[in-house]
């Protein structure tokens, strides 16, 4: 509202009333006048002021209330020219009017030159009733003097003050008022309106044409405002517009709210309103709007007790409503799920306080879509009573969905983990296999119930106990080896060990173990039963093999024995009949059978790897060269022999006789495989074999080997034949033509020599057999073979013979006798020891190795105690200890294998005794 009416103060008393009565309608004109006017009452002492208008207030800085009742000269200062004052008084007394320029002072102390004009208004009786004074600032005319200087400064101060005011108003959102007189189509505005609009304060107060209202408005907004104002002036009651105005090049937002007043005939008479600078607010609103829209945040404000809430556009959008500025609380809450808290609660005055936060489901009003919203707000007590609930809502559907999914996943995971755990527990508890976890210190951390079931130890006994303490002593090295590897994190093959049960018995347990982290996880299966069955199977297989072997041997031996016994029988008959002419024929046949039997036993021993081998360093090239002629004769003319030896070939360690025999056997096989003729190649080269190359060998170790290849160009072997090639008694030859011991014998010999045999063959592609013999480390000492010495008669040397077999003993004694030696015969060590310990002369000890009681070797030891240089000749058919001659014999000891020819025995005895001479 404007302040055009300078309401007459009660302080002015009856003078005011009188003035009203007299001036009536003029007063209003004066109110709106741009000229400063003051009215005084000359009837009272000091002629007090009874009325001032707005322009007076603006000029002097004194508000009407401050000015009323003051003496008429209250603006004068010490610097006011007293003469000028007196002149005015004189003029008034004389003519009732006066004009003068005098120096006056504003409320803020600033002086100004006042061109004042005073007229006296007289009542009906012609007496002075009031004096009307107009005041005009003419300081500029006095420019140049001190006052003018001060004036300029004051103006500047004034501008600054106005600016400050404007700022204060803008900050405070202070409103300026206007009032539009529709009849005259002019509007009046107060100082604040003028300040916002950039209008002259006085002019605005005095009234301006309509154009002044529209002129400062931003061009883009001007027409809109004009239409709205036009509506208002034509009777539209409500006026509300936000628009921009441009003052001094600066754009500001203002908010104008107005109302049209109608007269009794509904004709619009006045259009009044307030104007506020909302530039700052607009900016904030804009930012808020952007923030809310971008963030999807809807805001609301609700005053308790009301049916509606103020809401933002985004708020409506979130609920699926059409944008509106206010919505009934009931409508807002109607979209909320009945089980969830309402968005705006406390409708019935049961209001909360402080912060509020809750989440609720809604059904969007437009699409019916279900969404989750969060509402966050704050309750505040209003000064005018009641509570406001101000807050925001935002969509949290996605978060909720993710949450729900996550929860579901977690639940499912838990279920699964639970199920798994149960399954595992079940397996752990029900398993018949032994399960355990072993820590890095080798003790058991945990064991399953199967342990107790199988072994009888309680869980408490087992946990914390090293597994080794239950393991059979024989299996401990294997366990330690495996555990050590597992603790290094290596994987190990399954292994079988025996575990002691509480009752002292043992169970075979087959273990599978894996390292995981620092622990070892083991699964053990009781294989005791299997082991038992395996043993039984092995035993029965062995028995079967032995049966087969003995059957075959018995068959062969029976044949040979028939030859021997039959021959001997025929000889005896012929001798008794005196028919000696064809005795030799039968003796030859018996001898032949006997030799065949000897060869058979020899082969048997070779196959069983229990022959007596005389291992020594060998030059393979020389050996092959020495038997080349023999081989050529054996192979015949249709087969070509090729010898291909590496000139740098290492020397090997083997029994030369056996090797020769093996090569001869292979050559014969090759020849038989080449009925149409072909080529046999014997090759020699150096080879380095790794452990994996020797996987199938029993005793060979990785290292250097001499390879001897025997390759033919014959028929080759079918795979099934190849698979059985080394099996004893397996032969492809017609019954009676082969013993089936050839290859198996070679195999046995090579294995016993710590070497290896490989066979490669394809049908029609020939066969290659490769023998690997260990390399001899060191130089080849050419052990000179003793020169052959003719058998000659002994000279009564004493030979102690120990032999438990009377037939052999008889033979030996006979030979010794025929050779001219003295023999002392004993059957065993018991008989021999006294003789050995006596002073009896003994030049040679001939002893069987396998004897009852002390064996031959032990006897020799004993004999050497008293006769350290006594030569010893051992006779052996087979003796475990004598398999490796080099180990069995010491200096002065020799060995002769049974069966031997009589000549051979005599020859060896002769040699020993001669050497010792």
């Amino acid at each position: 509202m404007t302040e055009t009416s300078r309401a007459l103060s009660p302080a002015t008393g009856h003078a005011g009333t009188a003035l009203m009565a007299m001036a009536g309608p003029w007063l209003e004109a004066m109110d709106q006048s741009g000229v400063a006017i003051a009215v005084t009452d000359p009837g009272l002492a000091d002629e007090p002021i009874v009325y001032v208008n707005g322009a007076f207030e603006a000029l002097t800085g004194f508000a009407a209330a401050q000015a009323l009742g003051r003496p008429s000269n209250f603006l004068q200062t010490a610097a006011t020219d007293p003469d000028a004052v007196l002149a005015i008084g004189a003029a008034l007394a004389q003519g009732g009017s006066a004009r003068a320029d005098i120096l006056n002072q504003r409320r803020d102390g600033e002086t100004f030159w006042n061109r004042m004009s005073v007229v006296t208004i007289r009542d009906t009786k012609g007496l002075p009733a009031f004096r009307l004074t107009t005041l005009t600032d003419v300081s500029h005319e006095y420019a140049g003097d001190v006052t003018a200087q001060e004036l300029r400064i004051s103006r500047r101060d004034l501008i600054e003050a106005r600016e400050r005011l404007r700022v204060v108003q803008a900050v405070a959102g202070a409103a300026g008022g206007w009032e539009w007189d529709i009849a005259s189509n002019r509007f009046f505005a107060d100082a604040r309106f003028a300040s916002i609009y950039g209008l002259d304060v006085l002019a605005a107060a005095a009234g301006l044409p309509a154009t002044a209202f529209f002129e400062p408005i931003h061009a883009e907004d001007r027409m809109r405002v004009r239409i709205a104002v036009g509506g208002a002036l034509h009777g539209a009651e409500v006026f509300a517009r936000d628009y921009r105005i441009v003052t001094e090049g600066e754009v500001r937002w203002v908010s104008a709210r107005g109302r049209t007043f109608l007269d009794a005939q509904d004709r619009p008479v006045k259009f009044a309103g307030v104007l506020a600078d909302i530039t700052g607010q607009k900016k904030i609103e804009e930012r808020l709007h952007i923030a809310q829209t971008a963030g999807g945040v809807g805001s609301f404000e609700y005053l308790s007790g009301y049916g509606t809430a103020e809401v933002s556009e985004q708020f409506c959008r979130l609920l699926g409503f059409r944008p509106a500025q206010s919505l009934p609380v009931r409508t807002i809450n109607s979209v909320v799920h009945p089980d969830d808290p309402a968005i705006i609660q406390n409708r019935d005055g049961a209001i909360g306080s402080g912060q509020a936060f809750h989440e609720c489901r809604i059904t969007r009003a437009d699409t019916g879509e279900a969404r989750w919203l969060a509402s966050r707000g704050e309750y505040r007590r209003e000064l005018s009573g009641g509570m406001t609930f101000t807050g925001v809502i935002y969509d949290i559907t996605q978060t909720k969905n993710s949450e729900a999914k996550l929860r579901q996943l977690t639940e499912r995971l838990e279920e699964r983990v639970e199920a798994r755990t149960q399954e595992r527990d079940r397996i752990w508890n029900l398993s018949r296999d032994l399960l355990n976890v072993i820590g890095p210190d080798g003790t058991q951390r945990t064991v399953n119930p199967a342990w107790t079931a199988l072994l009888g130890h309680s869980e408490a006994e087992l946990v914390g106990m090293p597994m080794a303490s239950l393991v059979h002593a024989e299996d401990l090295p294997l366990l330690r080896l495996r555990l050590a590897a597992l603790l290094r994190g290596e994987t190990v093959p399954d292994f079988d060990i025996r575990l002691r049960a509480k009752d002292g018995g043992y169970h075979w347990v087959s273990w599978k173990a894996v390292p995981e982290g620092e622990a070892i996880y083991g699964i053990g299966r009781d294989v005791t039963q299997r082991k038992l069955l395996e043993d039984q199977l092995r035993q029965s297989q062995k028995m079967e093999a032995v049966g087969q072997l003995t059957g075959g041997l018995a068959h062969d031996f029976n044949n040979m024995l028939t030859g021997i016994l039959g021959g001997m029988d025929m000889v005896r008959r012929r001798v008794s009949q005196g028919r000696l002419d064809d005795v030799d024929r039968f003796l030859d046949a018996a001898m032949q059978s006997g030799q065949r039997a000897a060869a058979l036993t020899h082969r048997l021993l070779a196959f069983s790897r229990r022959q007596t081998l005389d291992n020594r360093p060998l030059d393979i090239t020389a050996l092959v060269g020495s038997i080349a002629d023999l081989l050529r004769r054996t192979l015949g003319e249709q087969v070509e022999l090729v010898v291909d030896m590496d000139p740098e070939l290492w020397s090997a360690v083997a029994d030369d006789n056996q090797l020769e025999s093996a090569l001869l056997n292979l050559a014969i096989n090759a020849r038989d495989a080449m009925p149409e003729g072909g080529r046999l190649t014997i090759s020699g080269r150096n080879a380095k074999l790794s452990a994996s190359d020797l996987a199938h060998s029993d005793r060979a170790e990785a290292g250097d080997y001499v390879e001897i290849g025997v390759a033919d160009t014959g028929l080759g072997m079918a795979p099934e034949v190849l698979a059985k090639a080394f099996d004893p008694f397996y032969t492809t030859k017609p019954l009676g033509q082969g013993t089936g011991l050839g290859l198996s014998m070679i195999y046995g010999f090579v294995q016993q020599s710590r070497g290896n045999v490989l066979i490669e063959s394809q049908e029609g592609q020939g066969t290659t057999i490769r023998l690997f013999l260990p390399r001899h480390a060191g130089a080849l000492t050419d052990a000179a073979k003793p020169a052959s010495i003719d058998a000659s008669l002994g000279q009564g040397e004493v030979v102690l013979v120990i032999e438990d077999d009377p037939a052999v003993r008889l033979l030996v004694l006979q030979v010794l006798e025929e050779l001219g030696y003295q023999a002392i015969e004993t059957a065993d060590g018991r008989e021999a020891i006294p003789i050995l310990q006596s002073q009896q002369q003994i030049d040679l000890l001939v002893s069987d190795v396998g004897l009852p009681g002390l064996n031959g070797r032990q006897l020799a030891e004993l004999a050497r105690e008293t006769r350290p240089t006594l030569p010893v000749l051992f006779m052996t058919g087979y003796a475990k200890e004598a398999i490796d001659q080099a180990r069995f014999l010491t200096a002065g000891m020799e060995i002769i294998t049974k069966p031997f020819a009589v000549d051979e025995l005599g020859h060896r005895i002769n040699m020993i005794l001669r050497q010792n001479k």
Partner: protein
Amino acid sequence: MIAHVIPLEDLERDALTELVNIGMSRAASSLRKMVGEQVLLSVPALEVVTRGGAATLIRERESGQVVAVRQDFEGIFSGRALLIFPEANSLALVRAVTGGAISAEDAAELEDEALAETGNVVLNSCLATMANMLQQSLTMSLPEVIRSDGSSLFDLVENGVEEGVVLFLYINFAINDRNIRGYIAMLMDLPSLEALRLLIADFIRRVVGDET
């Protein structure tokens, strides 16, 4: 929902709003005289919506039943004017316009009649003012009282097609000290946009031209 198919310029919308504003102010003034109390008006709102949209707009604001007095008009533009208020306010309004001179029973008996008459006065003054402003004549139907949940207020307009786009203008009003509130709403078909345009231009010239 809101289809900007009405090619009205911002200024034309402003002018149309102002025209309705003037008419509705006159209606409020009539109401004021009838109840002898101050009638407060909100800032008028104008929207271009479908008929269904207009119904939704009212329904969203009033969750309960509403009572409406409606009057259809025809002329250079045709449409429907409505005085809408919550059913709960109906009797209070009747009592207010009858100055409390009748008993509650009588008021209930006279309710529809009183409402129709009130609506007639209020809406007539509104439409008449508008017609006057446009210097055109409008033919008005007799007032009719409808009770509805808001959805059926707008769907009975002749040749009314749900999908049709209409101008929807409304003002909230509240009667001081009486706890009565409601809407004065107007729904306008736009059979001849060009004609309306001319009228609006003319109107603008008249209301604005005064000051130029």
